[in-house]
């Protein structure tokens, strides 16, 4: 069996990982790194539960080989915020009841965080469009949209506070 050593920055921390080339990124994250915040849903590039950020861009980690992340940076939900210091998107999901079963939530939040980097003041339509590759099996989409808008407001307030 061919094993290769790769260097990946995971949530800001440089890691050296040994992978078999066919190991999918999602399995590398969950089983090799032991970080189970990234969920495996459909395993067919449809649902987006496995979304992580690859160099800041949201990707479906079930459709990426771990070995492809060699030399790159991955952000998982564990790197979005900490329990003591939640990311505004995480706070938004809490405040606006943006999750029911929670299975899609890590992927939704990472996609939302990437959207807000690009577009700090998205309309409802912009948000719907951005999360169109992430499925919520509870169909709680309206609260997810409310959550992202909550986060956008919070981040705008933070920017104002910093610049004041």
């Amino acid at each position, binding site marked *: 069996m061919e094993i290769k050593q790769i260097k990946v920055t995971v949530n800001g921390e440089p890691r050296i990982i040994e992978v078999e*080339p066919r190991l999918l990124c999602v399995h590398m994250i969950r089983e090799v790194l032991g970080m189970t915040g990234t969920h495996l849903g459909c395993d067919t590039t449809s649902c987006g539960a496995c979304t992580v950020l690859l160099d800041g861009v949201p990707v479906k980690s079930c*459709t990426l080989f771990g*070995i492809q992340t060699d*030399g790159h940076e991955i952000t998982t939900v564990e790197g979005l915020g900490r329990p003591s210091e939640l990311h505004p998107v995480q706070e938004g999901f809490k405040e606006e009841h943006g999750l029911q079963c929670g299975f899609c939530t890590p992927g939704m939040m990472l*996609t939302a965080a990437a959207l807000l980097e*690009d*577009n700090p003041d998205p309309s409802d339509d912009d948000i719907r469009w951005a999360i*169109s*590759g992430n499925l919520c099996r509870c169909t709680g989409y309206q609260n997810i949209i409310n959550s992202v808008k909550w986060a956008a407001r919070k981040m705008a307030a933070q920017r104002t506070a910093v610049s004041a």
Partner: protein
Amino acid sequence: MYPSRFHYEAPSSIDEALQLLSVYQGEAKVLSGGMSLIPLMKLRFASPSAIIDVNNIPGLDDLYEDGGQLRIGALVRNRTIIRSDVVRARYPLMASVAPQIADPLVRGRSTVVGSLCHCDPQGDWGAAMLALNAEVVAVSASGERRIPVADFLLGPFQTSLRPDELAIEARVPAPSGQPFGVYHKLERKIGDFATVGVAVFLDRSGSSVTGAGIGLTGVGGTNVKVSAAEEVLVRGGVNDDTIGEAARLAAEVAKPQTDQRGSAEYKLHLVRTFVTRALQTAIGREPIDIRQRRFEDVGALA
């Protein structure tokens, strides 16, 4: 799902990639975005003995206009197409196609050239590139070939790319006058393959049509180019008569099959409707539809 075992190669130059292709003698697959290849490998429809990942080759992600052509490197992703100023300003058909492919996360990885090489009959880029008279640039140890997309797409998942060749670029002729282009795609939900897709391109100088292209998705063993309709539009301009004729000719070359997405009859109706709608929009008779306008609004971030 785990794919079969494979050797992984990540060349850092085109020369190195070509050497690897010759070492594996047709048993390797080239990986760019991987949005079609990896799912096929997971389902074990494809079990290549080696993967040649070209994502580390510098220069393949260039997207620029040069010498009367738009040059699209093999690593130019759909996300990049959507965010490109030159595409938005001068290549309206491409700007219409890209945001309708798969979903935003897939578009972050998937590439134009990869789509052409994968050659799925349901692929959207094939239809657009046929309409635009684009070509694929393939390199091998014996030199470079420029292959018109019409000669490149041979059948379901079959192209004229040789096993020793690497597709490094797609090239689209720059419009000489005022370009028009739109892609109408019916999909049951975001991320599904097209029930039917119709790509329409016009190059116009004043009221005359100097170039026309129509490509179809999902109505044959590969994307279909409607050459007869293109001639009608260039010869006669865009008017009620030629629109009707173009729609009829498009439905004539379309050979859809009845499947879970719709009956063959329904798909032919869609072909006629989409050709008509696109050309009516081109002459200002029909407003650009809500779905298309939406792509224009959000295009920059999709």
